[in-house]
């Protein structure tokens, strides 16, 4: 009887198809995707949405809605010609968050097709790109050529000038995409970045969100809105009373903080998946099957996940405390009762206004940064970890 010795294969390897199904990688990607979608919803809530009431009032007279949404422009477009993309996919006829569902489906479909295309060979990708180019060119030029030639068949030779209009017939489709893109470009690029593993698209999406926030901030700035009012919903200039989380944060600050934290989660978890997959891809075949490499890959990716949760939580907490640090300072001064200075400081409005809040928050951040020299975090955690391991063994 022949002895067949089979080399033991590790249960998991560092090959891309396997890694893409790994729960840690999927967690990063899902976390990033959810953050992206929640950012969109939160921004819609915060920067105003097109209410049914507004649409009812504006119907037929105004297509401008001072909100973070896309349907009004598309409604205007649909009045001039029938849109090529079905209304339910464009979100026309819906209001509020439900108007986002159609375009979101469109974005998801595009992302899936794009990611699928990326898994195929370079030749097929080139062929698809060429095919799309040819279809687009035919779509633009064929109606024009047909109109011109058929006109010449009946009327004799003529210049094609009067048929140039047909060259612009696909323009409506591109305009639909532009109107959709104003709101959904970061969503599409974000999704493509997360699932198509592109750092460039992820940073592009992040940049776009910051740009939207920036443009909104500038357009709602008193000096600008006084001269040129678009009716945009301006954020309050005061942060408000801290009434949430046991008086730690005001509702407005909380909403704004959620957006900034979600932006961080979206970017960092999206990049995490790409970084780890890139590393695995860079390994040669033999290392992808090496048990030590697999073990360390799991170590690295697990610790990344823990870091993401812990550091983002601490960041949120530190920001909340930083925003409340001015109150602490005023209360501290208040303890030293009796002196004229403490009374003045307590009654000082400046400390509780924007400048005071920002300066005190910055001071708090300095304290937070300096804590690394005060507490040996890592040694402490390492010691605990070592003891836990000893107990386990």
């Amino acid at each position, binding site marked *: 009887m022949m002895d067949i010795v089979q080399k033991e294969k590790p249960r998991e390897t560092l090959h891309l198809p396997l890694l893409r199904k790994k729960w840690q990688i999927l967690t990063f990607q899902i976390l990033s995707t959810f953050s992206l979608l929640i950012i969109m919803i939160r921004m819609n809530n915060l920067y105003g949405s097109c209410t049914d009431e507004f649409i009812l009032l504006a119907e037929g007279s105004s297509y401008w809605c001072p909100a973070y949404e896309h349907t009004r422009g598309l409604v205007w477009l649909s009045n001039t010609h029938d849109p090529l993309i079905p209304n339910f996919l464009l979100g026309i006829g819906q209001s509020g968050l439900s108007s986002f569902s159609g375009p979101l489906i469109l974005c998801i479909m595009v992302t899936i097709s794009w990611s699928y295309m990326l898994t195929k060979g370079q030749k097929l990708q080139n062929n698809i790109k060429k095919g799309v180019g040819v279809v687009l060119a035919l779509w633009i030029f064929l109606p024009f050529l047909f109109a011109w030639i058929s006109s010449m068949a009946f009327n004799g030779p003529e210049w094609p000038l009067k048929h140039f209009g047909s060259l612009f017939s696909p323009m409506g489709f591109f305009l639909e995409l532009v109107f959709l893109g104003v709101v959904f470009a970061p969503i599409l690029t974000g999704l493509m970045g997360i699932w198509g593993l592109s750092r460039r698209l992820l940073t592009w999406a992040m940049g776009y969100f*910051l740009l939207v926030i*920036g443009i909104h*901030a*500038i357009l709602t*700035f008193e000096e600008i809105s006084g001269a040129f009012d678009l009716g945009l919903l301006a*954020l*309050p*200039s005061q*942060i408000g009373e801290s009434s949430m989380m046991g008086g730690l944060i005001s509702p407005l*600050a909380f909403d*704004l*903080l959620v*957006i*900034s934290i979600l932006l*961080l989660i979206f970017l*960092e978890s999206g*990049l*995490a998946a790409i*970084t780890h997959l890139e590393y695995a891809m860079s*390994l*040669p075949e033999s*290392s992808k099957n*090496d048990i*030590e490499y697999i*073990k*360390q890959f799991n*170590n*690295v990716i697990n*610790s*990344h996940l823990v*870091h*993401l949760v812990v*550091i983002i939580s*601490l*960041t*949120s907490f*530190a*920001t909340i405390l*930083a*925003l409340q640090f001015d109150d602490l300072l005023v209360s501290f001064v208040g303890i030293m009762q009796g002196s004229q200075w403490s009374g003045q400081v307590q009654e000082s409005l400046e400390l509780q206004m*924007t*400048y005071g*809040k*920002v300066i005190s*928050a*910055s001071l708090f*951040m300095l304290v*937070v*940064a300096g*804590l*690394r020299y005060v*507490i040996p*975090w*890592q040694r402490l*955690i*390492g*010691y605990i*970890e*070592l003891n836990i*391991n000893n107990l386990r063994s």
Partner: protein
Amino acid sequence: MWTRKGTILLASGVSLILIGMMISNFQFIIIGLTFIAFLSINGWVDGHSELEINRELSAYNVYKGDKIMVDLTISNKSYKRTQQIEIFDNVPHEMKLHSGINKMKINLGPGQSTKISYYVRCPLRGYYTIGPVSVRYRNVFNLFVNESKIDSRSDVTVFPQVRDIEEALLKSDVPNMYTGATTLKTPGPGMEFYSLREYVPGDSFRSINWKAFARTGELMVNEKTRDAVTDVFIFLDTRDVARIGTVLKNSLEMGTIAAASVASHFLKRRDSVALVTYGSKMDYLGPETGDKQNFKILSNLAAVSASGSMPLQAVTNALTSRISRGSPVFIISSLEGDGTTLPAIRSLAGRGHEVIVLSPSSIDLERLVSRIPRLSYEVLKLERQNRLTAISGYGAKVIDWMPDIELSQALMQVKGS
């Protein structure tokens, strides 16, 4: 050190806070503060390189073209987690990774260890050092990076390849002149009994003649006849011109392979072999036999590099007194740029030495790296042929060694006068 991302995040954070303050926009301020808080808290976590590194190699002395397996064990003996660090074992660029890879991303907890295993191929002879180990701590979010080195080194000697030339030497003219050469009746390392002598400290206990000790009461040792039939002298040209050709195929590389193979062949036959290298200076390794001499020759050949322009005659003149009478002399040289080659060989042949000139064709080696016009090539080739013919006219056996010809094949085309 801050990474580009870290710097951008800091700059964006500060800018957003300032712009937010200017236009009283709390969204900007809070995003800016979040960025700064993110950086500050990430600053609490720092990687470390207090690692214990142990490198093991499958071999420390290898022949050119051989593979070495490198096992690098990394242990975290501290009480801290290493955090995400990249380990990179520095391999000399002359060595090529064959399988596996010399880097790993790790995150070792206290007391944990891991192992990197990889193979390197050594396509170039020489002395090399694997190590030190580079450790790069990279923050999980790529905000800070810190590089350090752990001084763990392993020295590797890559000897020139030794080709089997026995069959070639049997078929060619070369070995005929040595067979039946006079046995040297001198004491030395060998098999045959020569004489008895008194024991002196340092003599091996194995060589003590116990019967003689029992008979005389004094410690006596057996002396053996030196087995070598003759001394073979190898002259290797390591002048600057020897670098003509590619990195892997040039006069010097071909010469070292030839010298190693010839030396190994004669040492196996229990002959004594001497090696002389000349370039910027002359190195002389006197005639000896045995494995130790083989090792010395290979080590010397591993270290040679092309430099200088010492003429052959200066070398032969300096060594005239040391070259044993009638010993065969191998000269391995491209014979380029040295006007003293002819008189030197004439002088050696005149003193009764069998001279074998193994000459890598530098013109054909030159052609591997640069385009030589056909006419120029023909002229240069003709000049070389004339030089070789002149040398063989002095009684030397000349081998015109083309780059694409194996050593054993080249040796079979020995041309005598």
